[in-house]
């Protein structure tokens, strides 16, 4: 035999080194692939879980319900993609200042906006697809915030500073963008007061206080509805 035992030993050692290197490399690659955390700001680009990980759990922060509180009606239908042209009807019907008698359309509108009780305070008299400014200029539907700012100046100032209304996304502008909700995504412009909503179940902490004796409300503390 031409190969000595020493040579064989060397070859074996080399092979061992190579396998160890491959394993280490693979491990490093796996770690770098697992490193990026799920990112909920850009939902479509959620990092796919690695092959070993089943697609379970709350991927990408979908567990947080970020829907604006206002129910979908009227202008929100535009937001959802239902584009309609108000002027199809309103070129026939002249502008009316008072919203006083029942109409065929818009019967579901209940105007409850304080002293602001005229349609044309906000809607443009000749172009019903737009809103109206003080000087009669048009405000596009997309710029509805400027319409509300006509009266609610201090609130507008707070909103611009990011203090009125919810912001989502990133507080750190370097890391990502924040999204702002517009007025009508939370407030119904025809009845802007926030509606009462059902509270979620109360906490049971500490556990022995689950049914607090002499609680100052008459209702039993046990909340059996969905969590």
């Amino acid at each position: 035999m031409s190969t000595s035992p020493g040579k064989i030993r060397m070859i074996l050692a080399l092979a061992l080194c190579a396998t160890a290197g491959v394993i280490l490399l693979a491990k490093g690659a796996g770690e770098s692939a697992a490193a990026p955390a799920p990112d909920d700001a850009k939902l479509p680009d959620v990092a796919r879980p690695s092959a070993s990980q089943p697609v379970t759990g709350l991927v990408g922060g979908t567990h947080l319900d970020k829907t604006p509180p206002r129910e979908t009606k009227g202008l929100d239908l535009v937001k959802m993609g239902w584009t309609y042209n108000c002027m199809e009807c309103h070129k026939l019907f002249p502008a009316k200042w008072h919203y006083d008698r029942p109409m065929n359309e818009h019967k579901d509108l209940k105007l409850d906006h304080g002293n602001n009780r005229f349609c044309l305070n906000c809607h443009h008299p000749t172009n019903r697809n737009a809103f109206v400014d003080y000087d009669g200029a048009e405000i596009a539907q997309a710029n509805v915030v400027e319409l509300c700012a006509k009266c609610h100046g201090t609130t507008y100032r707070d909103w611009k500073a990011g203090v009125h209304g919810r912001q989502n996304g990133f507080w750190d502008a370097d890391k990502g963008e924040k999204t702002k909700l517009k007025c009508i995504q939370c407030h119904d412009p025809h009845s802007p007061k926030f509606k009462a909503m059902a509270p979620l179940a109360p906490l049971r902490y500490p556990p022995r206080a689950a049914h607090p004796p002499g609680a100052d409300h008459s209702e039993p503390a046990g909340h059996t509805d969905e969590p």
Partner: protein
Amino acid sequence: MNHDPQDTVSPRTIEQVYKPIDRRTFLKGSAVAMVGVAGLMAALKPLLALESGETTLDDLLQKHYRELKPEDLKKIMAALEAKTEKQYGVRPTIRDLKPIPGVEFGYALNLTRCIGCRKCAHACLKENNQSRDDAQDIEMSYIRVLEMNKGAINLETSSVYYDPETVPQKGKYYMPAQCHQCRQSPCTKVCPVQATWQEPDGVVVVDYNWCIGCRYCMAACPYDARRFNYKKPSLTKDQINPNQSYLSNRIRPKGVVEKCTFCLHRTRDGKYPACLEVCPTGARVFGNLLDPDSEINYILNNKRVYVLKEEVGTLPRFYYFFDK
């Protein structure tokens, strides 16, 4: 003949000579022994957990978070990931996010806007991997919403267990309370093992593997912001939030004190905390106190700001404010 008392042998019984244990002494002794054995068993209980695989030797010998080398922490976090996968069937990503230099977090809450819907408290449960299916299990939210009587900020007459049909109720206002991340934090001062401390960005954190569960910090906290976990969270696969961090929302061992960390696994990534993201009225404002243009500084400069229990001198980083 004189009797030498030394010579006299008093008639002693054999029992007196050998002093056998009478029944009473025996029972006493065995009771003491039982207590001793029980104590020993209790002391050795961690070893039983060791045997069952609940804890590993590495867990027992683990150092304090701030003394860990980065590579050791990496190993520990990998072990925690594996443990979560074994117990819950989902492998989370546990990270160790460090404080961002030049950032100090501040939080403000608008008492004029809050309607007490408890959406924040429930988002907290989801974000921080707490059990939430059973109504009786909804305990561990770090946010407690207080229903207050209008006219004063009186915690004595407030209620946490309110459950009417709709909120807000007439004559009431609502004040959610969570950890205030105090600058002079009493909770970190009383901890006998220094398992809790303030990070440079102001977040008060707990090393959940170091905490012994003595609950001194809960007694010290004037805001009732800390929670003791009496049981392991009951979570299904789909309920686990895989974005976890060692100091915040990883699944904690039973028997430790937990707290709000301003969602540091989100906020140190530049994101807003979970409770802010779900607030339907936008009552919550979060930002960097050291950035003069941040939203939180807009509040502090322009609004009427109220500090809860200002008189106790904790200097919180959590503020309440009013709109009108």
